[in-house]
């Protein structure tokens, strides 16, 4: 080859873009971070200050109401086990992070999913963005989170939202687009407006699919919250991180098993709720 093709300065471009964004927006994001961070901390502190048995019983009763006695019993035993391992504080930290991130992911993801289902043009923009969000290694999100939100829970939350949101968006859009055409036609024949059709026919029929998306989002959020321990999110991931740094295999496994228990509890609850909604319609 007679001449060399210069390297495309992709990394530099990304840095420039991030620097620019940081310079212009970090004030806002830092302020937001302070608010959200305080909220997360206050919630965690509140849960940790309560006697653990009270939290466990309250949680168990809530789960019982929402699902079955079996799942409630499993949740109670699981949490009692985590308390017994002296991982109560870490568990509560992780749980709050997962729930807060999931709430944000849903609040942003469901409207985007609806928009993508309603407008083909919007879907064409959203679809590749989703592909990128899901294939990008999750660690990468942690790096830009720090300049915007600082070390700690809020950065973890941000990275988690970005990483965990795609299934909610995708399955919301899918659920709406998969409404049986004859039902859409019936809604049209009776003179429904676009919004009436959406809220009275398409969204209710999409709920089981959306619930499956929410389940996946919660699971992804949990896995990301663990990774986010690297930027100081604490929680069960923090315990794993500590164990790695001190090369304590036993401590590491203990925290790892605790994460599995928490994951199974959250999965059983959301799966049951999703299935239950499906049965209502069938």
């Amino acid at each position: 080859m007679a001449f060399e093709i210069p390297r495309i300065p992709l990394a530099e471009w990304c840095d420039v873009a991030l620097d620019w964004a940081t310079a212009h927006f970090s004030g806002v994001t830092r302020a937001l971070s302070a608010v959200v961070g305080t909220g997360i901390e206050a919630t965690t502190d509140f849960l940790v200050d309560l006697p653990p048995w009270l939290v466990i019983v309250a949680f168990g009763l809530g789960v019982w109401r929402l699902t079955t006695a079996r799942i409630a019993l499993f949740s109670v035993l699981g949490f009692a086990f985590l308390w017994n391992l002296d991982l109560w504080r870490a568990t509560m930290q992780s749980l709050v992070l997962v729930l807060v991130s999931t709430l944000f992911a849903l609040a942003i993801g469901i409207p985007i999913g609806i928009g993508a289902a309603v407008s083909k043009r919007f879907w064409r923009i959203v679809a590749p963005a989703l592909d990128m969000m899901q294939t990008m290694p999750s660690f990468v999100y942690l790096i830009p989170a720090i300049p915007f939100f600082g070390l700690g829970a809020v950065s973890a939350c941000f990275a988690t939202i970005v990483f965990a949101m795609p299934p909610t968006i995708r399955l919301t859009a899918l659920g709406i687009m998969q409404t049986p055409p004859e039902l859409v036609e019936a809604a049209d024949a009776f003179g429904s407006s676009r919004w009436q059709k959406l809220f009275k026919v398409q969204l209710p029929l999409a709920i089981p699919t959306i619930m499956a998306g929410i389940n996946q989002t919660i699971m992804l959020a949990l896995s990301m919250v663990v990774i986010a321990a690297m930027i100081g999110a604490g929680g069960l991931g923090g315990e794993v991180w500590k164990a790695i740094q001190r090369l304590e295999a036993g401590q590491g496994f203990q925290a790892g098993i605790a994460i599995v228990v928490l994951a199974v509890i959250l999965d059983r609850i959301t799966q049951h709720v999703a299935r239950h909604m499906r049965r209502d319609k069938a």
Partner: protein
Amino acid sequence: MTQSRPRIRVNGLTKIFADRPEAALSLLKAGQSRAEILKATGAVVGLQDVSFDIAEGEILVVMGLSGSGKSTCLRCINRLIEPTAGSVLVDDVDVTKLGERELMEFRRTRFGMVFQQFALFPHRTIVKNVEYGLEIQGVPTAQRRDRAMAAIETVGLKGWDQHYPSQLSGGMQQRAGLARALALDPDVLLMDEAFSALDPLIRRDMQAELVALQKRLKKTIVFVSHDLDEAIALGGRIVLMKDGRVVQQGSAADFLANPADDYVRRFVEHIDVLGVVTAGDAMRTPSAVKPWHATAAEALASLTQTGEPVVTVVCHEGRFQGTVDAEALKGAGETQLRLLLSDADACVPASATLNETVAKLAGGRGEIAVIDADRSLRGVIANADLVATLARRRTHPVQ
């Protein structure tokens, strides 16, 4: 058939399925065939210059095999499918010219639609399904509940209102579908193969009930069907479609008597003639009619002369009174016929099918009278006439 002014007038309706139908439309106007247009432009001609009228309170059956364009035609009436050309006038409002907002309003109040696969909303109870149209119109809750319950009762689903569609049989689901359309109290019912997904027995029940319901509620109904027997059972006028065009319109008996082409002839080939041809079609002018003050001797003479099995007796106004046979006349001399009358029942209305006529004939003396609604005599049918009518139907050349 169209006594009152048409409620719906479909005029020159054309539908071309293509992103840019203009080229295909001009080819169509230039007289090119469907196949030629498909080859030249890739556009599919769904409907081609379809025109028909529907009178107020009429059941019109749009019939054809699959792919004939009958469902497309129905959907063009409420614009679930956008027609490419032509107009649809409902009470002089051209539906094809309505804006989005007006069309929505028009659909809400004027059209009720019933679908082949019921298309009930699975997440709503029956009563919530029936309420749907009223709900989106913004009718207050209590009022719409009342109207929905009334519609549910009309279709015979009382007590099922709190069930979900999946808990009901197919026939019951379609009753709910009908109730959903009726709850709006629309002027026009659009029914797309509404009974095709049902078992034959239930289908027949539903057909009979629809006819009864229509007599009571006087709705204008456009019913799409692929089933000739169904079209006959519904008893209305038929628009027969093929390849997106109207082949012939009229009653089933018209199709039988004067088929427009071989396609129609083949379509009605296996038709139950006895269920379609009416007494009015099969009757002939009676030769032995006597007023009721005529004497038995006169009547007997006319019987011998004409070879009729009975004398048909009418009053002064020409209304059918009964029949007298030779047996009763013999030896009755100068007795007036009105004293010898029997069988005031040996008659059928001109609109009765041959099925009903045969039943009457079998129980009588070999001849019955055909009468109008006011019992005035129109003609008679003897056993031989019936046989001749049936034989005539069979002699049509069938390709």
